[in-house]
């Protein structure tokens, strides 16, 4: 069993080396004939029966793909050598080294056919440009238009910030503690209160705010929800001390819809 594992490990390393070799030949523009294709095919064939997992088979496919790219490079190489553009780089290097700058520049002039291109402004484009210029507002007017309104800096009182809800009246934890105390006071002998009876308030906004705070009471272990699905009733029960369920049991989320209609229905029921 361990021999098989060792062979697999060896085969994986071999294939990885094949992939790297083929890639480096392509990236660095090396002579593709330095790679012995027959030898690589022998390696790929030898280890192929060992592959079982998808990862191993993918590696095998990648090696075959890289090998195919290398064979294509060899084919291009042969094609290039058979064309009139083929020059032995070493021979060429020697020739260039022997030639002076003037000789090289003269050779360039024989094979260079520079492009002809012109840039000219036409009467039409001049007319367009004049129209554009006439309609263009001066910079100080344009900047005046786009500049953001300037607001003078001043001071704000704490009350103003509270009014704009930038500052909270109490720290959130303190608000939550106070809300928990209120819940404990409102619960009856059975230690629980109907959910809507607790969160319901005179205004819809306040009801939403109380539901929001209640969700934190439950999440942070100050209270729990008791849901009676058949009766379609939901109670909220405060704990005497905050309880932490972190890592003890899986928490669940209970979505509660608090629409304006539901709030209105609750309010009518309360009034009646």
């Amino acid at each position: 069993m361990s021999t098989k594992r060792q062979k697999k490990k060896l085969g994986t390393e071999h294939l990885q080396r094949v992939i790297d070799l083929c890639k480096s030949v392509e990236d660095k523009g090396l002579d593709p004939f330095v790679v012995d294709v027959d030898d690589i095919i022998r390696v790929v064939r030898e280890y192929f029966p060992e592959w079982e997992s998808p990862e191993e088979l993918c590696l095998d496919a990648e090696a075959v793909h890289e090998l195919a790219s290398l064979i294509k490079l060899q084919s291009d190489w042969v094609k290039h050598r058979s064309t009139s553009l083929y020059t032995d780089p070493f021979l060429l290097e020697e020739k260039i080294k022997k030639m002076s700058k003037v000789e090289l520049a003269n050779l360039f002039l024989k094979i260079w056919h520079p492009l002809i291109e012109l840039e000219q402004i036409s009467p039409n484009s001049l007319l367009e440009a004049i129209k554009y210029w006439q309609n263009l507002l001066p910079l100080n007017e344009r900047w005046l238009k786009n500049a953001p309104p300037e607001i003078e800096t001043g001071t704000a009182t704490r009350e103003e910030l509270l009014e704009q809800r930038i500052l909270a009246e109490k720290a959130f934890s303190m608000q939550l503690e106070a809300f928990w105390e209120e819940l404990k006071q409102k619960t009856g002998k059975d230690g629980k209160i109907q959910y809507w009876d607790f969160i319901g308030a005179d205004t819809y906004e306040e009801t939403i705010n109380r539901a929001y705070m209640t969700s934190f009471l439950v999440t942070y272990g100050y209270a729990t929800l008791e849901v009676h699905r058949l009766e379609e009733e939901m109670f909220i029960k405060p704990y005497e001390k905050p309880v932490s369920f972190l890592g003890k049991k899986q928490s669940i989320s209970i979505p509660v819809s608090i629409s304006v209609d539901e709030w209105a229905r609750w309010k009518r029921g309360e009034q009646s």
Partner: protein
Amino acid sequence: MKKKATYARKLKRATHLLFYRRHKKPGVKGWELRKRLGSDYPKVLGILDSYLENLDLQVKTVFEEEPTVEKPTLEQLDRARFYIVLRGGLTPKESKMMGWRIDDIAGLITTISYIVSKKGRAPREEIEKLLRDKLPGWRVDINMNRYIKSGYLAEDENKQLYLDWRTRAEIDQKLLVELLLGTESQKITS
């Protein structure tokens, strides 16, 4: 008579399109010419080319994705780019109008011929080493960037240099190899 007038109009339009730069790169794509001149644009270009011959200019077709084709199809022509180039060569005196020093021109021809011999791709390091043989090191780097900026060469993320659009348009690579290998340097200067 009407046909003659049509071709005269098309010739003018082709001249405007080919002589004046309209994009970032000079030249016009075949499909663009077809759109502006009609499907017989190869014929219009043929007539324009024979006009330009007297002025030592020519319409050059460059096949960007494939090597030069002897009898191109319409699809191949649509993909090709057309330029107006000088038909003949320049004299050494005229070469001054290019605005390049003789060092720069010699460096460029060395680079291009080396890349051609390496099947169209060569490492920048190798070429710089070759140029440093005759040019000061600081100049080699400046020149190389200049060749790239002018569109003669392109460089990839692996520092490999390729021949770019301008070399394909302006340089007769076949003649370059023939002159380099088939002719002694004495003959080249003559």
